[in-house]
């Protein structure tokens, strides 16, 4: 029976689904009213009129709005740990080791139309841990959450957070941690890459030597330096938490010195001041719509930040950094129309194709295009309206969230819970009766 259900489940994902009479917002192409066909997890066809394959499941959209699944470039959901805060360089740790596929935040993010999220290490370290890009395949195990084939990435952090442990009032020498200043943050990053270069050279030397001498001893593998060598070699992307213009320029200079690129600046609230320099480096910027002033370095912010950077040629996305905001990123995007006058397409790009490009998965996701992954969300209203509520969300052509079904399932869940509570109480009651009385 179990096997049969499993086959059935596979069949469901391989099934052909046609969403018809939808207002389709492909983001990379003009909007139209028509249909989208999903087959084997991919978008097979789209247009005002499509061929409906035999046996396809029809979803009648009744004029609702279909857009590509939202992508969050900066999230901390779905992980059993976020910060390895003990050291200033924690590149040996990785979110991929601690993904928690049962975090309810995944389901709630789906309910906001999100289909992919970059789960970042925290910002306690100048060089933090490895990030994990996931698809919100709610119900699958940790390994199946991982966005297969994505280029790996790592978190860096500048400013107040990484230097906080260097000068905590009342701390003793044993729990203070270098650095205590922004200068120190730069030094930590440079020192780490100096070490990485030496490590890289050691391996190069070994490879040359081992070509002649098979018995040569390889260098000790160092899990802290390996990811940094990958950064130097362009095999791992850097997402850098940053706020102030001066520290942003500092990091771009450091990257230039060591010959690697900063893939994205995260938060980047003062990005509007140095947008030209960011664009020149080729870094992307992933910011908030209007969230600031929660600490000193986050004061000099404007709601036009995203729009200004877009207009200066920076690849911009809006992120949540929050299990709450992740549920309404579409509203965040809409704010850039009010502040900065972006077009609808530009605004939607900030939460779809742009983060896809920043995460180097734009060949797979971020827009509705034939051949791309069938990651789609159906909103009841235009997604840039404050009244828009996600109704159905598909990831790889599998329906992972269905508002109607969610409501239908609630009474059964309530009932099950009541039963379990009852059984639990009964057991405790029995135990009380059978426990012998104290005798001494």
């Amino acid at each position: 029976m179990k096997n049969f259900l499993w086959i059935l489940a596979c069949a469901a994902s391989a099934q052909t689904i046609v969403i018809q009479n939808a207002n389709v917002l492909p983001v990379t192409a003009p909007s139209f009213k028509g249909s989208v066909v999903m087959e084997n997890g991919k978008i097979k066809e789209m247009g005002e009129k499509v061929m409906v394959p035999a046996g396809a499941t029809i979803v009648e959209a009744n004029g609702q709005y279909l857009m590509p699944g939202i992508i969050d470039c900066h999230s901390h959901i779905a992980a059993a740990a976020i910060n390895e805060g003990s050291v200033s360089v924690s590149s040996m740790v990785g979110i991929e080791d601690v993904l928690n596929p049962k975090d309810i935040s995944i389901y709630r993010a789906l309910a906001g139309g999100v289909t992919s999220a970059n789960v970042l290490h925290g910002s306690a370290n100048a060089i933090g841990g490895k990030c994990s890009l996931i698809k919100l395949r709610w119900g699958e195990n940790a390994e199946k959450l991982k966005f297969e084939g994505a280029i790996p990435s790592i978190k860096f952090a500048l400013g107040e957070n990484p230097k906080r442990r260097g000068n905590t009032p009342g701390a003793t020498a044993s729990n203070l941690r270098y650095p205590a200043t922004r200068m120190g943050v730069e030094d930590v990053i440079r020192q780490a890459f100096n070490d990485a270069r030496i490590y890289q050279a050691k391996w190069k030397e070994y490879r040359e030597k081992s070509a002649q001498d098979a018995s040569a001893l390889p260098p000790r593998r160092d899990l802290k330096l390996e990811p940094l060598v990958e950064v130097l070699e362009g095999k791992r992307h850097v997402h850098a938490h940053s706020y102030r213009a001066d520290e942003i320029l500092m990091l771009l200079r450091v990257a230039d010195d060591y010959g690697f690129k900063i893939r994205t600046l995260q938060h980047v609230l003062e990005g509007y001041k140095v947008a030209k320099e960011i664009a020149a480096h080729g870094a992307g910027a992933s910011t908030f719509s209007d969230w600031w002033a929660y600490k000193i370095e986050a004061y000099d912010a404007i709601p036009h930040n995203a729009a200004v950077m877009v207009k200066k040629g920076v690849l911009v996305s809006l992120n949540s950094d929050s299990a709450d905001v992740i549920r309404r990123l579409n509203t965040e995007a809409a704010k850039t129309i009010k502040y900065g006058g972006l077009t609808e397409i530009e605004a939607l790009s900030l939460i779809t194709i742009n983060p896809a490009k920043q995460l180097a998965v734009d060949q797979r996701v971020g827009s509705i295009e034939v051949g791309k992954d069938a990651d789609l969300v159906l909103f009841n209203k235009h997604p840039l309206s404050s009244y828009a509520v996600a109704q159905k969300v598909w990831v790889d052509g599998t329906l992972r969230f269905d508002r109607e079904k969610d409501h239908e399932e609630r009474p059964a869940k309530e009932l099950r819970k009541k039963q379990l509570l009852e059984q639990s109480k009964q057991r405790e009651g029995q135990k009380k009766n059978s426990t012998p009385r104290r005798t001494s």
Partner: protein
Amino acid sequence: MRKLIPLVLFCASVSWTQSSPVLAIRNAKIVTVSGPAIERGTVIVRNGLIQEVSENATVPPDSWVVEGEGLTVYPGLIDALSSAGIPPPSSTPRPPGNSPPPARGPEDRPQTSSWIRAADQIRPDERKISVLRNQGYTSAVTFPTDGILAGQGAIINLAGDSAGQMIVEQRAGQYVSLARSGFSGFPTSLMGSIAYVRQVFLDLDHYQRAKNLYASHPQGLERPAYDRALEGLIDSPRILLPAVSDVEIQRMIHFSKELNRPTVLYGGMEAYSVASELAKEKIPVLVTLKWPEGSRDEDPDAVESLRALEQREKAPSTPSVLAQANVPFAFYSDGVEAPVKNVKRALDAGLSPDQAIRALTLSVAEIYGVADRIGSVEKGKIANLVVTKGDLLAEKPDIRLIVIDGARYEPPPPTSPAKAEATQ
């Protein structure tokens, strides 16, 4: 009259009888575990080993004879993960200002004492030894548990004149804990602990290669630095990884494959939902006998999650689900003082009594690779037996005799509340 009570207790705790070289238990039911039960047979024990198990063995004339009519002989129970025999760490706090500097990374080998051997820590008078023995346990796999790589476990018999005599196997494996402990120094997170364990085993591979190379021709080679943390791991035949929830079990299955070392998982509460994955990877599971319970101190009206309630309901079904899926599993006490009593929940959830006895005896021995020594009533094995009147898994088992290394021990008489009250 009150004065009598301490006296009674004192007698109970030391009531072991003198050993004679030959012991015969005749006309008893014998639950061999390794084979079918013998309805009426004789077990002969000589010099601490089982000499014969059969329906019609001749009782040697020099035997101490136990008339087994109406009694059942089981192999002695084995606690699959225990701290019996290891005195609890002294609670004297470290003098202030004298604490070691916080670890800066894996190279400082934080929270590691892999070189500690349980076999070197055993105290024959440690309290938990007799607590377990009185319930029918004759052996325990006991581990140092303080740290990420806490030390090498040992399989011990739960009686003996000296610690040395109690050791059945001094290499049971390395106990790994991933829980965060301490407030400063690497690691402070689950992913830090995982990264640390990964780095240590990479270092171990490198260390062994470097040592072998150096041993083959030291002249002209750089000397590999001695590393006690790695030395402690070299002769660990397996690692024990913690995994309670289904997510943790899947995580540790994945990690075990990556480390590519013989692994045993411990915890296993939610193994009921991932049994097929465990079966596929052939990873044995030590199942805790501490079933999840609601907290006693919580607000009784507090809302609990459906997930927590499901776990509480289904955890006891783990053993039967694992048995059905052919996943090797065994029970461990997990700090519970009367673990055998808790087996009943697993029986209620579908585990057969035979499977339960196996998970308390032979399966433990198999998981730790000592099934040729203990775990069943078989010729040539160490004479660890428990003799009961009636079922060992009954709510109040009537244990008549415990045999460890051929020596006889009698459990204290059950303290009945009525009697204790009468003496007051």
